[in-house]
């Protein structure tokens, strides 16, 4: 009996010894180069996070004066209260003088598979709205599908859940968001840039009906990532208008996206389709020209001219995109404007001089479906950083 107790005691002892891994989560045990890149407090699992991204552009349309612009300068500021609770903000200057809060949300991580978050958040639709840092896409300007069809950077106040399933290589997001404003100040929705004018951006925004947004990402095939996004709801009308026919429209947007990378070759593409309900009443009420259907797609291929294993990367790319904010107009009670059926070729280079810093140059051929429309050219140069 004594022997048995002694053996057990020794066994338990050795197990105890064996498990004494010092897991002091407040210590920066692993002093890797960028471990401290964003942590000011020196406390790795709790504290302040800073970061940001910026892009400075030069656009030179053929036959016109050019434009030099500090297009975006965004500071990321976050605070981690503990491993479960984090507050994240992105503060943005556009064109030097316009200030926005781009994101501001509180995230509560319940477990490995489930986060609950609320606040001003990005609507997960397509590629660029969520991944819009300039080092993550080719070309100086974001694709125009991600401007006129998906109004990037599209963010509203909402609440929802997100998480990942490692076994299935699946990420999900589902939110209830505030919707677009039917009328935003003096701006109305229309054919030129679709729903873009309706973004309320969390600034004293009007709310009368919730909108649902969800996205699934699958990355279980090596090198490939697929996304399926959906957004459904209605625009928000003010109290004095919301009983009137045409005060709001229904919005149903579906997006498919894919990204592929295989050694030095990469490709991406997306398709976005939007249906607008009650556009006829809306157009009659506000004397505008919002289509009843909008759609757009693009495809892009790129090849890295620098061998793998180096820090630098030089992507030569070509992209074709086609988008139409008047894809259907008959139910909207308006004539179709073919100049809103646009297409673009963009080709150029993205020279990643360091991880997080890119110098870009590209040329765009911009055309539309109007008969005998003359293709316009534009040269773009600039750089982007993300840290």
């Amino acid at each position, binding site marked *: 009996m004594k022997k048995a107790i*002694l053996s057990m005691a020794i066994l338990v002892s050795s197990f*105890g010894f064996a498990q*004494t*891994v010092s897991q002091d989560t407040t210590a920066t045990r692993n002093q890797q180069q960028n471990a401290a890149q964003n942590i000011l407090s020196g406390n790795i*699992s709790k504290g302040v996070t800073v970061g940001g991204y910026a892009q400075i552009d030069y656009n030179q349309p053929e036959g016109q004066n050019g434009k030099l612009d500090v297009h975006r300068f965004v500071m990321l500021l976050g605070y981690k209260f503990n491993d479960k609770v984090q507050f994240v903000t992105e503060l943005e200057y556009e064109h030097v003088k316009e200030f926005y809060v781009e994101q501001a949300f509180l995230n509560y991580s319940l477990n490995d598979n489930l986060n609950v978050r609320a606040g001003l958040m990005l609507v997960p639709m397509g590629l660029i709205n969520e991944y819009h840092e300039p080092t993550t896409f080719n070309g100086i300007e974001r694709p125009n599908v991600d401007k006129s069809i998906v109004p990037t950077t599209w963010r509203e106040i909402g609440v929802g859940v997100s998480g990942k399933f490692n076994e299935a290589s699946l990420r999900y997001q589902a939110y209830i968001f505030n919707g677009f404003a039917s009328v935003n100040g003096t701006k109305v929705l229309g054919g030129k840039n679709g729903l873009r004018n309706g973004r309320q951006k969390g600034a004293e925004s009007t709310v009368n009906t919730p909108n649902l947004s969800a996205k699934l990402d699958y990355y279980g095939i090596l090198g490939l990532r697929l996304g399926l996004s959906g957004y459904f709801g209605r625009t928000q009308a003010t109290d004095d208008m919301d009983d009137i026919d045409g005060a709001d429209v229904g919005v149903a947007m579906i997006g498919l996206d894919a*990204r592929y990378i295989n050694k*030095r070759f990469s490709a991406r593409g997306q398709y976005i389709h939007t249906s607008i309900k009650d556009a006829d009443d809306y157009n009659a009420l506000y004397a505008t020209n919002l289509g009843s259907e909008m759609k757009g797609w693009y495809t892009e291929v790129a090849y890295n001219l620098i061998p793998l294993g180096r820090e630098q990367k030089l992507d030569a790319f070509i992209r074709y995109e086609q988008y139409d904010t008047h894809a259907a107009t008959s139910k909207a009670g308006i004539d179709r404007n073919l100049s809103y059926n646009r297409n673009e070729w963009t080709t150029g280079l993205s020279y990643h001089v360091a991880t997080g810093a890119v110098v870009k140059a590209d040329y765009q051929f911009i055309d539309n479906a109007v008969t005998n429309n003359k293709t316009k050219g534009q040269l773009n140069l600039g750089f982007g950083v993300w840290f």
Partner: protein
Amino acid sequence: MNFKYILLLFTSTLMLSSGLPKNIQKKVDKEIKKIFEVEEFTLDPMVFPSEVTKELAADFGENTLFTIQENEKHLGYAYVSKAPSKTDDFDYLIVFDTNFIIIKSKVLIYREDYGGEIGSKRWLKQFIGKTQGDTLIYGDNIVAISGATISVRSMTKAINDVLVSIKILHEKQSF
């Protein structure tokens, strides 16, 4: 039962409570049990002289590398450490067989939304079979994940550094 046995049991209990934080320990135990199909095992920390470890690319300080024992039987090795993600760091585990060939890698705790895709079981499978002679190159023999570049690079570098360090430790006959 005489007094010294009681003292020994008491000490054992204390040691159990001074180990890994529960969440890390639970995850490491679960993986090892699953991989080796064992119920009882011990993790014995390996200690190397600091003049050796300070020269290594990866952290081989106190309580990073362990031998996994089932009674007297040597099952393999476990390496537990941290690597940076975009704005935080994550805990990871690498399990080796007795010849230091990777048989499993796992992200134990990931603390931010961005880059969490590196936890994908399918993606982590790429490291299985890698050993000290291998050089892991992001984008080449380790495939990237779109939208998780920073963490993919970080995990690739971390595991590569561990493999390189093990090679050096072997050369110095530290095992």
